[in-house]
C-alpha cells in the first residue's frame, strides 16, 4: 500500500519536552515544590498533547510522519517514523503517564527524594514515548536503553534492601537484554545494510542463517522487557517494590515497549511486501520469508500461552496485592504475545491477531495501571499490602473499591468492560489460527486460553473479596476503622483510567474504527480481510457473550471452592519457586566463577611458593658455604621468587630473540651447533 509521508518535528518534540523538563525539574526541585509539580504536570500534559497532534495526520489523512536528525546518536542518524501503530502505543503511554503523574502528586508526599523521582520519571517518559516513535531499530534501542536505565531509579526508589536486590536483577537483565538486541542489530545491519522500520517494503533483502538468528536475539532482548515466559523472573520482584505510580507505569506501559519491539521484529522487519515489484525481486525467497514468519509466529503463540498460564498460576498464589498484580501482568502479556504470534502465524491473513494484540495493549495499560494506583492508595493509607491482613475497605475507601471493581471487571473480560473486547478479538484470532491449518496443538492452546481467562477471574475475585468485601481480621481492624478517604489528586488519576475502561467497554467499535483498523493498514495484511472481518465486528453477539459467561462461571466456581477449602493459602514448595531456582543458579554461577579465578590463583601461588622454597633451601646451602654467612645481599637481590611469572616470560622471550638474532647472523653455527 503506497503511503504518503510528511516531515514534521512533532515526534522529536514529544521526546524532547519530557527530557528537557527533566533537566528543569532537577534544577527547580531544590527550591520549590510547587514549581516542580507544575513543571512535571505541564511536561506530561504537553507530551500527551503533542502525541495527540499527530493523530489527524497519521490516522485521518493516512500519512506517515517522519523526522531525521543527521549524524546524531547513532551511526545511522536519529530517525523518527510515526505510523498508526506507533501512535497507538505513544498515545496510551502518554495518557496513562498523565494519570499516574496526577496520582503521584499526593502519593509521593510520604516518600523521600521526590526531586530525583520526578526527574527520572520524566526521563523515563521521554524514553518510553521515543520507543514507538523511532524510525529505525538503532534509534529505538537508544530510547529503550534510556527507558531501562532511568526506570531502574524508579524501581529502587525506596532504597530498602528488597528494592535494591530487585533493582539489581532489573538492571542487569535490562543491560543483558539491551546487549542481546544490539548484537541482533549488528548482525542485521551488516548483512542487510539497513535497520529502518518500514512495514510494507522489502527490508530484509537476502535470506540466510543470520536473519533468523538476529530476529531471535532481538526477540529475546525485547522479551526480557516484556516478561516473556522464561525471562519473566525480574518482573514479580521489580514491579512491586517501586512506588505505586511507577509500578503502574512499569506494569502498564513499559513492558508494552517489549511487546512493541517484538511486533516490529516479526510483523514488520521480516514480512516481505506483497506488491508485484517486490514479489519479482524477491523471487524464490518470497515464500521462504513468509514461511519463517509463520514458524516464528507459531513459537510465539506457544510462548505466549505458557506465559499467560504461568502468570495466572503465580498470581493465584500471591498474597501481596502488588505482587499479584505484577504476576497478572505477566499473564496479560501472554495474551498480547498470543495475538502477535497469530498475526505472524497466519501471515497475510493475520490481521485479527494484530488487532487483538493492539487492543489488548491499550486495555491492559488502562486497567493494570488503575489497579496499581488503587493498590497505591492502600499502601499510602495502610502501609500494608498483604491481602490476608486487609478487609472491609469498601466502607472506608468506596472510591478505590469502585475503581478496583471496574478494572477487575475489565481485566476479567466481562461484557461492557474493555477487556472483553480485546479478549474476544484474541479468542477469534486463536480460533482462526486453528481453522486455518487445523493444527491440533492450537486447539489445546485455545483451551488453555480459556482456562487462563477463568483463572484471571478467580484471582481478581479473591483480591476483591479479601481486601474489600469481607470483614477485616481482628489484628488490623482498629487500623482500618480509623481510615479516611482518598486525597483528591489520587481520585482524579484513578477516575481518568476508570472512565476510559467504561467508555471502551460500551463503545468497543469506536476505538477499533478510530485507531486499530487504521493502524492495521500500515502492516502487510490483506485489506479485504480487514474490511470484512474486523471493521464493524459485532462484539455483543450470543456466542462471545456466552463464552465469556462460561469463563466467569468457571472462575467463580473455582473461587467458591478455594474459599471453602482454603486452597489459596497453599503455595508452591520453596524448592520449586523461581526465586529459589534463580538464587541457586546465581550461587552456582558465582561458585563456578570463584573456582575459575581461584584456580589461576592457586596455579600462580604454587609457582611462587615452589620458587620460594627452592630458593630458601639453596640460599641456606650457599650461606653455609659463604665465609660470612647472612651478610651477602647478592643472592637476596636475585631471588627468583620476587619476580613475576610474566617477567620470567619476558626474559625468556628476550633469550629466544637473542638466539634468533645469532641464528640470523651466523646460521646454525651461531648457537653452538
Amino acid at each position, binding site marked *: 500500500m503506497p503511503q504518503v509521508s510528511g516531515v514534521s518535528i512533532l515526534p522529536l518534540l514529544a521526546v524532547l519536552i519530557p527530557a528537557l523538563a527533566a533537566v528543569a525539574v532537577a534544577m527547580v526541585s531544590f527550591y520549590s515544590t510547587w514549581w516542580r509539580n507544575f513543571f512535571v504536570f505541564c511536561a506530561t500534559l504537553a507530551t500527551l498533547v503533542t502525541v495527540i497532534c499527530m493523530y489527524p495526520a497519521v490516522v485521518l489523512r493516512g500519512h506517515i510522519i517522519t523526522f531525521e536528525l543527521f549524524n546524531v546518536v547513532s551511526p545511522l542518524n536519529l530517525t523518527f517514523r510515526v505510523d498508526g501503530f506507533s501512535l497507538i502505543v505513544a498515545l496510551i503511554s502518554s495518557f496513562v503517564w498523565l494519570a499516574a503523574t496526577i496520582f503521584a502528586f499526593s502519593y509521593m508526599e510520604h516518600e523521600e527524594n521526590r526531586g530525583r523521582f520526578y526527574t527520572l520519571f520524566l526521563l523515563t517518559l521521554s524514553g518510553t514515548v521515543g520507543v514507538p516513535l523511532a524510525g529505525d531499530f538503532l534509534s529505538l534501542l537508544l530510547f529503550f536503553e534510556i527507558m531501562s536505565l532511568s526506570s*531502574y531509579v524508579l524501581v529502587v526508589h525506596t532504597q530498602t534492601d528488597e528494592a535494591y536486590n530487585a533493582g539489581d536483577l532489573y538492571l542487569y537483565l535490562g543491560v543483558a537484554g539491551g*546487549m542481546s538486541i544490539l548484537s541482533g542489530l*549488528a548482525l542485521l545491519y551488516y548483512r542487510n545494510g539497513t535497520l529502518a522500520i518500514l512495514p510494507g517494503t522489502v527490508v530484509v533483502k537476502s535470506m540466510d542463517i543470520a536473519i533468523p538468528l538476529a530476529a531471535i536475539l532481538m526477540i529475546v532482548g525485547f522479551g526480557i522487557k516484556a516478561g516473556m515466559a522464561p525471562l519473566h523472573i525480574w518482573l514479580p520482584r521489580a514491579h512491586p517494590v517501586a512506588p505505586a505510580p511507577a509500578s503502574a507505569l512499569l506494569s502498564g506501559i513499559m513492558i508494552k515497549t517489549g511487546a512493541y519491539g517484538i511486533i516490529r521484529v516479526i510483523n514488520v522487519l521480516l514480512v516481505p511486501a506483497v506488491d508485484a515489484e517486490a514479489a519479482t525481486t524477491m523471487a524464490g525467497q518470497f515464500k521462504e520469508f513468509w514461511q519463517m514468519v509463520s514458524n516464528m509466529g507459531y513459537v510465539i503463540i506457544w510462548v505466549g500461552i505458557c506465559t499467560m498460564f504461568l502468570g495466572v498460576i503465580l498470581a493465584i498464589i500471591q498474597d501481596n496485592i502488588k505482587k499479584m498484580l505484577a504476576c497478572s501482568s505477566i499473564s496479560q502479556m501472554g495474551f498480547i504475545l498470543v495475538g502477535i504470534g497469530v498475526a505472524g502465524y497466519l501471515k497475510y491473513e493475520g490481521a485479527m491477531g494484530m488487532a487483538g494484540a493492539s487492543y489488548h495493549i491499550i486495555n491492559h495499560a488502562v486497567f493494570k495501571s488503575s489497579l496499581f494506583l488503587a493498590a497505591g492508595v492502600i499502601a499510602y493509607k495502610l502501609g500494608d499490602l498483604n491481602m490476608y491482613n486487609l478487609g472491609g475497605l469498601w466502607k472506608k475507601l468506596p472510591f478505590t473499591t469502585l475503581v478496583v471493581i471496574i478494572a477487575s471487571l475489565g481485566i476479567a473480560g466481562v461484557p461492557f468492560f474493555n477487556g472483553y473486547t480485546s479478549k474476544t478479538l484474541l479468542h477469534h484470532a486463536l480460533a482462526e489460527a486453528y481453522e486455518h491449518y487445523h493444527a491440533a496443538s492450537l486447539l489445546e492452546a485455545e483451551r488453555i486460553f480459556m482456562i487462563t481467562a477463568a483463572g484471571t477471574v478467580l484471582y481478581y475475585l479473591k483480591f476483591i473479596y479479601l481486601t474489600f468485601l469481607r470483614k477485616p481480621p481482628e489484628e488490623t481492624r482498629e487500623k482500618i476503622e480509623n481510615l479516611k478517604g482518598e486525597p483528591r489528586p489520587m481520585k482524579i488519576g484513578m477516575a481518568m483510567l476508570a472512565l476510559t475502561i467504561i467508555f471502551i467497554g460500551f463503545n468497543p467499535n469506536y476505538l477499533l474504527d478510530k485507531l486499530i483498523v487504521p493502524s492495521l493498514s500500515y502492516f502487510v495484511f490483506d485489506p479485504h480481510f480487514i474490511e470484512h472481518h474486523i471493521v464493524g465486528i459485532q462484539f455483543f453477539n450470543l456466542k462471545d457473550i456466552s463464552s465469556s459467561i462460561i469463563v466467569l462461571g468457571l472462575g467463580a466456581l473455582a473461587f467458591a471452592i478455594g474459599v471453602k477449602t482454603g486452597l489459596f493459602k497453599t503455595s508452591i514448595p520453596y524448592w520449586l519457586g523461581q526465586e529459589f531456582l534463580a538464587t541457586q543458579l546465581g550461587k552456582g554461577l558465582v561458585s563456578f566463577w570463584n573456582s575459575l579465578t581461584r584456580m589461576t590463583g592457586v596455579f600462580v601461588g604454587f609457582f611462587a611458593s615452589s620458587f620460594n622454597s627452592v630458593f630458601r633451601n639453596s640460599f641456606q646451602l650457599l650461606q653455609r658455604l659463604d665465609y660470612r654467612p647472612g651478610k651477602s645481599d647478592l643472592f637476596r637481590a636475585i631471588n627468583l621468587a620476587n619476580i613475576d611469572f610474566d*617477567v620470567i616470560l619476558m626474559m625468556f622471550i628476550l633469550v629466544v630473540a637473542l638466539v634468533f638474532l645469532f641464528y*640470523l647472523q651466523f646460521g646454525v653455527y651461531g648457537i653452538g651447533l
Partner: protein
Amino acid sequence: MEIVTNLPLYAVVIPIIGALLLIFFAEKADRIRNPLALLTSLITAAVVISIIKLVVEGNLVTYTLLRILPGLEFSFKVDPLGALFGGAASMLWVFSVLYSIGYMAHEHNRKRYYIFYLISLGVTMGIAFAANLFTLYLFYEMLTLATYPLVIHEGNEEAQKAGVRYIIYSFAGAGLVLFSLLITYGLVENLTFTQGGIMGEVVKTMPLVLRIVFITYILGFGVKAGIMPLHSWLPAAMAAPTPVSALLHAVAVVKSGVFGILRVMYSIYGSTALLELNLGIVVAVLISFTIILASIIAMRQDVLKRRLAYSTIGQLGYITLGAALLTPLGLSGGLLHIINHALLKITLFFCAGAIITVTGKKKISELNGLGKRMPLTMLAFTVGSVGMIGILPVNGFISKWYLMGASLETGMPIFVIILITSALLNAAYFLPIVTAAFFRKGEFKPVRGLEAPLTMLLPIVVLAVTCLVVGMKLELTVPFVQSVVKYVF
C-alpha cells in the same frame, strides 16, 4: 601536499621549555607555577590544533631535525594517524593539569611533579609526531624515564616497588622494540612511516622472519599497551597520584603503546602485507584473551583505581582488536575508541581522585551512599560507566558498533560474542559501584556548597558532558577518523 614547518618541533619543545622554567621557582611558589603549567599545556594544545588543522586540509606536516644515516633520521611527520593521537593527548593534558592543581594542592614535591608532568607532555607529542620508527623509539624510551618520577611520587615502599617494576617492564619492552627495529632496518634500510608499509619485496622473500619480528614488535609495544601476560606493571603503577594514573596510565602511556602497535601494523608492515602474512588473526586472538581476562580480574578488585586499571587493560584490547581486524571499519572502531576511551577513562579516574581527596576512601566497598555527598561526581562516574559498557547515548557505544560491524564483515562473529561478553562483564563491575553509591545506605551526609574543589569538579563535569556530546554528535569524531582510515588504507 607536504608542508615543511617546525610546528611539530614546537609541540615537543614548548612543554619541555615550560618545564625547565619551573625549575627557577621555589617549591612554595604555587601561585606562579600553577598558571605557568596550565599556560604551557594550553599553548601546546593550541600548537597541536593548528597542526591538526593543516592535516585535516589534506597536508602532511614534516620537519627533519637531524640525519644520522640514509633512512635513519630524527624527524617529525604529522599524518592523520599521528594527529589523532597527538590531538587527543594534548587536549586531555589541559584538563588534567587543571585537575592536578586541585589534587596536588596538599601533596609534597609539587615542583618535581609539575616539571616531569610537562616533560611527559612534550615526549608524548614526540611519539605522536615521529616520522619514523627510530624517532618514535627514542621518545618511547624517554617517556619511560620522564614518567618514572611521577610513578614513584609518593616515595613510599609501594611506590618504589611499582617504579622498579615499571622501569623493568618498560625497558624490556623497549628492548624488544629495538631488536625488531634493528632487524627491520637491516632488511629494508628504511624506517619511515609510509602509507601501505615499507616491507615491499621482503614479504615474499622472508615471510618467517617478518612474522617473528612482528610478534616481537607486538610484545615490545604490548608492554605499554597492557597486553595480558605483560600487564602487571599497570595495576601496580596505580600507586601514583590520581592525575598521573589518569593521564599516563589511561591515556598517554598506554595509548602510546597502542599507537606504536598501530604504527607497526599500518605504517611499517601495511595492511596488505599483514593480510598476506596472516598476522591480523594472531593479534586478534591474543587480544581477545586480554579483553575477557582483564574484565574477569577487574571484578575481583576492591580498590577503585585498580579496578579502573584492569578495565583499561580490557578496553585497550578493543583498540588493538579493531586494528587487528585489518578492515577500514575495524580500524575506524579502534581509532574511535582511542578518543572515546580516553575521554571516558579520564573522567572515571578523575572521579576516583575526587573521591579520594574529599573522603579519603579508596575501596569500592566503602563507597555506599556516596551519592549523597558527591552527587555530581557520581553522576559523571555513571556517565563514564555507561559509556564503558557501551550503552547507547554515551560515546563508548559508537566504537563498539564499528568493531562489531568489522568482525561481522570479515566473517568472524566470534569477536562480536567477545565484545558483548566484555560489555556484560563491564556492566557487572561498573554498575555495582554506581548503584551502591546512590542507593545503598551509607553514612555520608550532603554538604552545602561545592562537593569538591572547583579545579577538580570542573574538569570532571566538562569531560562527562563531552562524553555525552561526542556520543550524540558524531560529526565531531567520525569524519576525522574516517579521513585517517582513508589515509592509512
